[in-house]
């Protein structure tokens, strides 16, 4: 038996989550077609084709969110609802590898007040405004953070579309942090899943995944769930030697033909290892890509200072009473 230290900082969990009940060790219920690129019996690690260069322009999209304050409303009838004032931002990094320039191509910042209270209004706190996002149901405090994801995803789609509309480059590649989900209509886009929460492949094929060397990928397979699509595993360089270290799952829209998916898989093989982060710089290395880490830092800065916002919110609610 060998032992390995997971390369992620313990506070971020691990790069796969067996504790959640559906780790890579536990099979997913999804329908998986493993015979898309090569028959399951012929599965072996695949290298990027020789001569394939990563595109000159790679766009990476990510969003960040922060809970600025928890609020409680007091309704006329005496009931009380939980509220969450959150700031969120999405942005696109445009990595022009040809010129050697990575820049923040576009970013949007949104702030929202998430509550189920029927009477709550948008909140103006100092110079910023928290738009009301009214939730249905009882609006338990524990469900509020999840609700922030909806406008954030919308914001991410907005900026990715906007970033594409600036650049007319037909060969660029858009990398979305996290599963594609509703973003699958974007062209030449791959979803990038850092954390393996469930295992899609049958146990026999998992040995192919763990046998991947840095820069290699598995053959493309299809996942048959609602948010499914073409998918493949890829190992990034720079992780320890643990079987699942440095493994990411990449996916692309099921709406494209399989051959195009294989093309994207090859392209990702040539592109993503270049962006892998170093362990001493990023607590989630190597899966947390370098541009994404930089983007998140910039976006967090754009969210504004949390202490200033908290003070503004406190003042605003006190005046409103």
């Amino acid at each position, binding site marked *: 038996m060998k032992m390995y230290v997971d390369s992620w900082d313990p506070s971020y969990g691990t790069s796969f989550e067996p504790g959640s009940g559906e780790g890579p060790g536990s099979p997913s219920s999804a329908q998986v077609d493993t015979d898309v690129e090569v028959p399951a019996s012929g599965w072996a690690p695949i290298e990027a084709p020789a001569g394939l260069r990563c595109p000159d322009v790679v766009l990476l999209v990510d969003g960040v969110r922060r809970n600025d304050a928890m609020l409680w409303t007091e309704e006329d009838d005496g009931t009380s609802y939980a509220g969450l004032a959150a700031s969120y931002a999405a942005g696109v990094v445009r990595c022009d590898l040809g010129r050697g*320039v990575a820049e923040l191509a576009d970013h949007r910042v949104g702030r929202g007040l998430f509550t189920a209270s029927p009477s709550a209004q948008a909140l103006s706190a100092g110079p910023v405004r928290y738009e009301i996002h009214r939730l249905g149901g009882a609006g338990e405090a524990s469900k509020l953070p999840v609700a922030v994801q909806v406008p954030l995803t919308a914001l991410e789609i907005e900026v990715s579309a906007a970033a594409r509309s600036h650049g007319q480059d037909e060969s660029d590649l858009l990398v979305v942090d996290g599963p594609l989900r509703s973003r699958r209509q974007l062209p030449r886009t791959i979803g990038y899943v850092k954390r393996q929460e469930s295992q899609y492949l049958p146990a026999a094929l998992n040995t192919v995944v763990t046998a991947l060397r840095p820069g290699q990928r598995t053959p493309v397979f299809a996942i048959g769930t609602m948010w499914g699509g073409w998918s493949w595993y890829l190992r990034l360089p720079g992780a320890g030697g643990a079987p699942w270290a440095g493994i990411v799952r990449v996916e692309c829209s099921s709406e494209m033909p399989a051959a195009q998916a294989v093309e994207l898989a090859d392209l990702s093989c040539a592109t993503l290892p270049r962006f892998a982060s*170093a362990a001493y710089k990023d607590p989630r290395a190597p899966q947390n890509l370098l541009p994404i880490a*930089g*983007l998140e*830092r910039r976006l967090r800065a754009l969210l504004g200072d949390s202490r200033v916002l908290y003070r503004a919110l406190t003042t605003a609610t006190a005046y409103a009473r």
Partner: protein
Amino acid sequence: MLGTADATPLQFWTAVAPGSYLQLDDVVVTKRELPDREPVTIAGVVTQVRARHEGAQFDSDVFAIADGTLPAQVQEAAEVTTTRVDPELYVPPAPGAVVSRASGEARAAALHFDRMERRVPMGTGRDGVPVFLNADFLDGTRGAHVSISGISGVATKTSFATFLLFSVFRSGQLGADGANARALIFNVKGEDLLFLDHPNTKLDERTVAAYKQLELDATAFPDVRVYAPPRAGDSSGAPDVASRLTGVDSFYWTLAEFCEKRLLPYVFADADDERQQYTMVVHSVAAHLARYAVPAEGGISLDGVRLGSYEDLVDHVVDRLTDDETRTTWAGSAVSMGTVNAFARRLISSKRDLSRLIRGDLAQRRPHQIKTAESAQVTVVDLHNLPDRAQRFVVGVTLKSEFEDKEKTGTSRPLLFVVLDELNKYAPREGSSPIKEVLLDIAERGRSLGVILIGAQQTASEVERRIVTNSAVRVVGRLDPAEASRPEYGFLPPAMRQRALLARPGTMFVNQPDIPVPLCVEFPFPAWATRKSESGPPPSGTMRSIVQGADPFAVVGSRGGSSDDDIPF
């Protein structure tokens, strides 16, 4: 204006917008709006600029950024030191306020040029626009004296001093004072100051344009008289110069003058001489010479003996001092033999150095004295061939007589500028000597008498403190790193002190009393020759010295033949 660094009324940081830049010494201006008051204009000079990657956490992130994988922004920021607040309301500029580069009148106001009634151009700033020196602090109105420091070779101290003189004489800012002013320049090293009146053949159009920008004509000094010591061992008294052949006069003192004016103490002008016992002997011998020496055919007659040279005089004096009968009359009664011997030993050793300067064999009528009042506008005294002791003697005696002449006339006009390099040799911080006394006198009283010292030295820390502190204008060229950290350069802000270590030739930092920040000045290449190889034809007036040089009775070098003795028709 940055909000991430504290802004104070005297110093603040400004961010530099993408696509623009600020460099050190740029003049910037910003405004601060105040409630119920007129806005305050804050002007300053950039004293530091920095650039960094925002968004990078680790030093090695720069590789990822340059590779194009990590987004980051290059942000430049500049530190501004306030030079002027108008009206005088010391409030910090507000973060976010727009700071812009000042030009034209705003720049002049920021650097206080608008308050200067008479502005002497010193050169151009880093932005290529002229910078000025307030003439009030040069001519003694409110201050006087210039102290120039910098290591030799690259600091171009003498070049700056001569350019400053040129600017004073030619800019017309000092009015009649400028035109009538005189300059006395001691040439200590090489013969590079002997060609001030020769045009520079290497003068190019850029230099001419630089002079024009300062509203000066790129010409040589028009009116220069050069003195050199007589050639050693030459009985005709021809000047000892190698490269300059025309318009050079020799200077010397006759034995009669030596005795009458009591010049003997200047023979003993070493810094530590004053502490020695034998100074008593020096003064009593000088007094004895003054009382009993009788001029005789160029030489002197003493105790009935005719002395025709400095050697003769020294031998005579030593002879009388060693003689038991005459010793008390020469040296006083309470002097031990050891002290007399110490005196005699030093006196004898001075024979070699001074015999060519103190003469008994040359005609007294021949002009041989350095007198700026009767000389040209610029008087250059060449010392570079002289040994150390002789240099001290010439400097000490010349300055003493010039200063005494000024004291006698009692007016501060015409101004006399004295340029003296190696000031640390003549006025060292430690000890005292007759020359140091003269220089201190000039530093402390010269301002009211119109004697302005332009002193240059490698290390201001080794010059008598009272001379440095009396200088209104302080100039620094390239400095030695160890020297730059001394308190004498406290007027330089830290960033400027660092820059002084790598200042290029032709770049000086000038501190003047009414501008709180030293200004970085680039002065143009000299329009006059600084060596034989680049000198143009000599001015016609100097040719006279060739044809008349052999005539010991001619008034050599008197200007342009317009001597009063000439028949006016």
